[in-house]
């Protein structure tokens, strides 16, 4: 099946289209979105097995020869990300059955999610830089729908900011691609890598590298371009925030990783040095934000920023340990952020507020929630054997090997601050004197807990089963460190 690698993109799109026909029938919407995501997940698993056994899968659309048509490339990194994306979306959708109001469900909420997944999976899979722009637009337009859906005052205010920032960064993206095209004369990513090697990365290519960092940095929220993120992400309801927090910034991170390992590898002192410094600054800025707020959402949102910094710091090392650490941490962060945001959503639903000062004593009434939150929080901070540990350890090992001692120390300290920021939530919300809770139905609490608990368990399994996952991670980091594997896979036929 030559088109296998397209199925995780096509299937969500197909089910999204079908859902457009019955916007008002909530039962049909819920059933079809669940079926669609399960089918997509199965196709992603089959694809992963195929990539594991046969190496990188490619298909060039429209049967054109490789550098001319749009090539879709599925290597281990992209298939891992695609699978994780579908898993997280599935749990967010299950959470949405009770976690979001029927008004939104009747107004194209599920189709918008499926279209966003189409864009996210497409951006992870494409091997053509202009096509990547197109998939970015697909996911952004779907995310505009999700952020504004409901039309609360706060949402409208923040969505204007969100749309404006993203429209500007998209314009910059096209300009950067045009500039790159004017230098190398191709938009096929493997071909670009080849052409840049031929001309040996003159100054203009380094300028383009920095421009790409700017473009993807706005989407991926690196320092100092994350300014729009805390406000905009706090506006939509919790399931949407979970999707955005777990997936959207990671697309930017993936794009930086891909371009900085495939194209711009000939002047790493400049480009990767800059990336490394920005990553450290991102971590510091995120830490300050995470400690500064007493608002659950804001604390978690600043933790997204920290994670972006950590992953990019790993990527910037350009060695074996750093790269596989970055991939480990990337997947871990998607899972654990998904789980934490869902748990935070439950805390907010139970207490009726997102202000830490107004809660307390939840341990007496909601012990299960407390324990799950504690496990997820430890996982986020990277306490062994939970999932954050191995990624961070490898990144720090890579940084020491590359001689970035100060960066590693800052990253180690940041882990403590991450732990402090999430444990602060635990202390304020779960310890102390119980506060009077608004009436919530016990059944809806249970159905909210179910997806969150399973996601926490998956992240625990991800941490405990590290040994079993290592072959997949080495496959992924091998391709990133040896661009020739990627180039050969695309251009050899």
């Amino acid at each position, binding site marked *: 099946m*030559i*088109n296998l690698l397209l199925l995780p993109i096509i299937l969500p799109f197909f089910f999204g289209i*079908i859902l457009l026909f019955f916007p008002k029938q909530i039962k049909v919407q819920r059933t079809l979105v669940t079926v669609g995501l399960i089918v997509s997940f199965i196709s992603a698993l089959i694809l992963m097995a195929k990539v594991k056994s046969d190496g990188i899968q490619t298909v060039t659309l429209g*049967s054109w020869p490789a550098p001319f048509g749009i090539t879709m490339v599925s290597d281990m990194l992209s298939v891992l990300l695609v699978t994780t994306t579908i898993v997280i979306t599935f749990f967010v959708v299950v959470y949405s059955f009770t976690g979001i109001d029927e008004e939104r469900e009747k107004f194209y909420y599920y189709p918008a999610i499926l279209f966003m997944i189409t864009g996210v999976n497409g951006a992870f899979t494409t091997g053509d830089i202009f096509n990547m722009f197109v998939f970015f637009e697909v996911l952004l337009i779907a995310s505009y729908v999700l952020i504004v859906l409901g039309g609360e005052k706060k949402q409208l205010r923040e969505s204007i900011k969100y749309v404006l920032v993203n429209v500007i960064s998209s314009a910059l993206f096209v300009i950067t691609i045009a500039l790159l095209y004017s230098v190398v004369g191709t938009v096929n990513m493997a071909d670009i890598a080849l052409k840049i090697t031929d001309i040996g990365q003159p100054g203009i290519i380094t300028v383009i590298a920095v421009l790409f960092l700017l473009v993807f940095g706005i989407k991926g929220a690196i320092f100092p371009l994350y300014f729009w993120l805390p406000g905009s992400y706090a506006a939509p309801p919790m399931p949407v925030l979970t999707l955005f927090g777990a997936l959207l910034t990671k697309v930017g991170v993936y794009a930086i990783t891909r371009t900085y390992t495939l194209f711009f590898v000939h002047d790493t002192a400049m480009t990767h040095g800059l990336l490394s410094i920005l990553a450290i600054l991102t971590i510091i800025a995120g830490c300050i934000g995470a400690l500064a707020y007493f608002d659950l959402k804001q604390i978690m949102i600043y933790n997204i920023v920290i994670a972006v910094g950590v992953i990019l710091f790993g990527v910037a090392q350009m060695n074996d340990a750093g790269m596989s650490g970055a991939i480990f941490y990337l997947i871990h962060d998607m899972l654990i952020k998904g789980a934490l945001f869902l748990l935070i959503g439950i805390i907010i639903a139970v207490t009726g507020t997102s202000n830490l000062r107004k809660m307390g004593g939840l341990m007496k009434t909601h012990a299960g929630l407390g324990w799950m939150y504690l496990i997820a929080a430890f996982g986020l901070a990277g306490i062994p054997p939970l999932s954050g540990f191995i990624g961070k350890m490898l990144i720090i090992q890579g940084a020491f090997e590359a001689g970035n001692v100060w960066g590693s120390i800052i990253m180690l300290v940041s882990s403590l601050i991450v732990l402090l920021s999430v444990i602060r939530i635990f202390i304020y919300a779960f310890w102390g004197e119980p506060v009077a809770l608004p009436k919530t139905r016990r059944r809806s609490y249970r159905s909210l807990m179910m997806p969150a608990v399973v996601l926490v368990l998956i992240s625990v399994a991800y941490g405990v089963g590290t040994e079993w996952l290592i072959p997949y991670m080495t496959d992924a980091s091998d391709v990133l460190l040896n661009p020739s594997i990627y180039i050969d896979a695309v251009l050899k036929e």
Partner: protein
Amino acid sequence: MKTNDVILQTATKVVFFIIFLFSIHIFFAGHFTPGGGFVGGLLTTGAIVLLLLAFDLKTVQNALPFNFMIVTAIGLLLALGTAASSLLFNIPFFTHAFDDVYLPLFGVSALHTAMAFDAGVYLVVVGSTITMIQTIGGDS
């Protein structure tokens, strides 16, 4: 306030069909010359917007009783279906098939699957733009 727009309305009744036929022409011309589903769709939308200007939202909704979201969905399905039919033949996605076929009345014509895809694009453009205009126009 009741405006007297007899001239506009009378002219629109004729001009609408001219624009609409021209949009169909542009749609088919798009295969070898500038044009295609996107431009054709926009021209059709232009014709409907002219109707909206000359009459009012209610009249146009009675005259064209479609749910334009469904039109968009059908268009998407048509476009995706055309591209995805290559899945059945195990050839790369979006691969284009064509042949010269003898049709009565038209003589030997070149039939392309790209046309079906473009028809999908046409429906998506018409459906989504009219939905936007109706939503914004219906607010006031």
